């Protein structure tokens, strides 16, 4: 919709540029996390992630291979050769030196005299030849260089976090725990709410209006109030802290929105269909399962997405009703908070763990955005 009948093209340009800026601003934080999750710890701490997308010039401190075993006798000179960056690097050296106080003494291809008959030549790609008239010993020769390194990324963090990390860094268990919490906690409230919503939408009984008002009221009750009474209840009846408790809690907390959304949708279904079915002798149960449920699929889907996102992203309910002292049932959000405490500076682990946790909701979000938007609109706009 564009109400600008006489709009000028310059205004369109301004709008386009503003939207580009706005989108960039909104995307920037997430991209930062994504890029960081593909960098090694050294890379992350050596410069900002926004610099990693372009070739960067930086001062690096390198070392040649140790002479022991690597040196060969070529033309009467003890020689060690190789590449200071290791093999397969695309870094380009602009200047280099052999002392930390003079890191720009030599250009690529120059030969540095190290004294005592030793010398070293470093080429532009980092390959070196280190020679000595007598046998070389000790550790490798240090080389300080100003080098331009191309962007470099690794999937190693994901391997650490998902596959072979130690127990504190591992997200794989937390991932499955989260899944175990989420799926029943999404499906069960839908089933219960669908029946209730049908009754509130299409059955006549005294007190219906009051019940609808009650559901609308409960929609805004903060779940903080429920923590202590329900935890006591769960401990009292023997459920304790565990999956059953968290499933029940999520079911209870999700029901008002589920009933509200589904009822609003079901009320809008055409009356004729339902009355015709009744005339044909269908029972309420048949009408519900054969007519209402299939027709309500969009509303069911939008609530399912809400509940999935909410249970997947939840921290508070899991902390109170699920995670016990052993920590065996930890979920991803809780795992990340713990990583923030213990590995606060290890951004490669943190970023990767966080991205693993947000990747599933993001996939669901982009795949089913249509239903999410529809649900939001049904919930807020009349």
């Amino acid at each position: 919709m564009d109400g600008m009948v006489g709009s000028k093209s310059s205004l369109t340009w301004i709008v386009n540029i503003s939207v580009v800026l706005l989108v960039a601003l909104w995307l920037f934080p997430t991209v930062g996390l994504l890029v960081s999750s593909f960098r090694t710890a050294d890379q992350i701490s050596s410069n900002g992630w926004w610099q990693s997308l372009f070739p960067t010039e930086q001062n690096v401190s390198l070392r040649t291979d140790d002479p022991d075993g690597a040196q060969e006798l070529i033309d009467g000179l003890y020689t060690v050769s190789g590449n200071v960056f290791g093999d397969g690097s695309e870094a380009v050296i602009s200047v280099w030196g052999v002392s930390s106080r003079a890191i720009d003494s030599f250009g690529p291809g120059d030969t540095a005299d190290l004294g005592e008959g030793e010398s070293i030549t470093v080429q532009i790609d980092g390959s070196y030849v280190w020679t000595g008239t007598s046998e070389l010993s000790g550790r490798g020769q240090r080389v300080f260089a100003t080098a331009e390194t191309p962007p470099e990324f690794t999937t190693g963090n994901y391997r650490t976090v998902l596959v072979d990390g130690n127990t504190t860094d591992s997200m794989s268990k937390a991932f499955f725990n989260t899944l175990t919490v989420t799926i029943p906690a999404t499906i069960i409230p839908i089933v219960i709410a669908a029946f209730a919503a049908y009754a509130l939408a299409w059955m006549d009984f005294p007190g219906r209006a009051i019940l609808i008002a009650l559901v609308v009221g409960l929609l805004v009750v903060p779940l903080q109030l429920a923590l202590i009474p329900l935890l006591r209840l769960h401990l009292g009846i023997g459920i304790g802290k565990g999956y059953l408790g968290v499933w029940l809690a999520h079911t209870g907390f999700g029901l008002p929105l589920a009933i509200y959304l589904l009822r609003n949708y079901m009320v809008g279904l055409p009356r004729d269909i339902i009355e015709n079915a009744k005339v044909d002798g269908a029972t309420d149960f048949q009408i519900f399962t054969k007519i209402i449920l299939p027709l309500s699929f969009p509303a069911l889907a939008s609530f399912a997405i809400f509940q999935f996102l909410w249970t997947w992203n939840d921290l508070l309910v899991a902390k109170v009703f699920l995670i016990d002292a052993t920590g065996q049932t930890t979920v991803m959000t809780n795992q990340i908070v713990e990583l923030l405490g213990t590995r606060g500076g290890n951004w490669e682990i943190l970023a990767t763990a966080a991205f693993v946790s947000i990747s599933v909701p993001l996939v669901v979000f982009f795949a089913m955005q249509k239903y999410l938007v529809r649900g939001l609109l049904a919930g807020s706009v009349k």
Partner: protein
Amino acid sequence: MNPAFQGLLTIIIGVGGCIGYFYFSNQFLDKVLYPAKGPKAGHNINRANQIRPWLFLFPAMFALGLYLAYPVFATLWYSVTDRDQGGAFVGLANYAQMVDDPKFWEALKNNMLWLLIVPAASTAFGLLAAQLTDRIWWGSFAKSLIFMPMAISFVGAAVIFKLIYDTRPVDQAQIGVMNAVWLQFEGGVGSFLILRLLPGLLMLSGAAAAIYVAYLQITAIREKAQASLMIMVRGVFIAVLVWVAYSTLMLAFGAFTMVFPYGVPQQWLTIPGWNSFLLMIVLIWIQTGFAMVILSAALRGIPEETIEAAIVDGANPFQVFFKIKMPQISGTIVVVWTTITLVVLKVFDIVFAMTNGQWETQVLANFMYDKLFRANDWGVGSASAMVIMLLVSPILVWNVYNARKEMR
């Protein structure tokens, strides 16, 4: 037992149980209790139809009652009893203890700031994004990108923004964007323009806007005879506006006079006063997409004729927006505002993960969690939960009122 298997079993038992319950209870009602045949068939059918709604409703109502309605009263009860004295009634002692705690007032003050700033900023940005994206061909793509943070957990967002606010010692490369940008400022003309003039002018215009709205309210009270309740509401609104105007003026003054520590990386999250705003940015970032989606739908729903008529009458784009579009979507703006207000009142994860209430960033939900599960003080914890409930209840009443009005 493997939890995944256990989960699968629960789905089967839970879903199967639910469907089984509904099916068999219906069967029981129709076949055994009130069979639709025999001499009293008609009577029986009527009876069965009176009972059936309750069969459909029972599981939902039971769960709602147990998991949401009962806890409200239970928490109220815990807030006036003492657990250490075996649950003896202690009146308002817990509330008295709570208001003696300076952390409570800090949490309340911060919550008020959150309540003012986050809904306002999210709605404003959402409106801006909706208005802009509706005019371009790739608008829906842009929308879905701005909407995306909705899917990200508060904890994930906390990690994302901790990276942005990260601080390294002065001799190391800054990996947090905020410090990297900060170190670009050295106190020259650019610094003056961006760090003093721009925020100062923004604050001054904010103060001017608040004063203008307050002035409108005052004239509204003086011109029309109104119910005393309405005058009271407007009075409170004016008081808030005056406070906002005063604070923004002070901030504008601060922007021009503050001494900036140029060239030194800052520990942003430990600077009281600013850190709360940095936490709010996280929630604004998440909620803007929500506001944008709803408001965009509302903007599309505006009848085209009203806008065309205004343009024919010579209205400029700003007049079209503020005088024609805004009044027609004001109802939706209220809905968006209250929905985000509810989210703000319950905000816990962001503060918990980023600062845990240190450095004067405490909010009520985190204060309550602290009292309940760290200090193990259920009385004060429940009392602070009741404060959150109290803050929510106007919205609750308003929602119920609207829902009932609609049904009539």
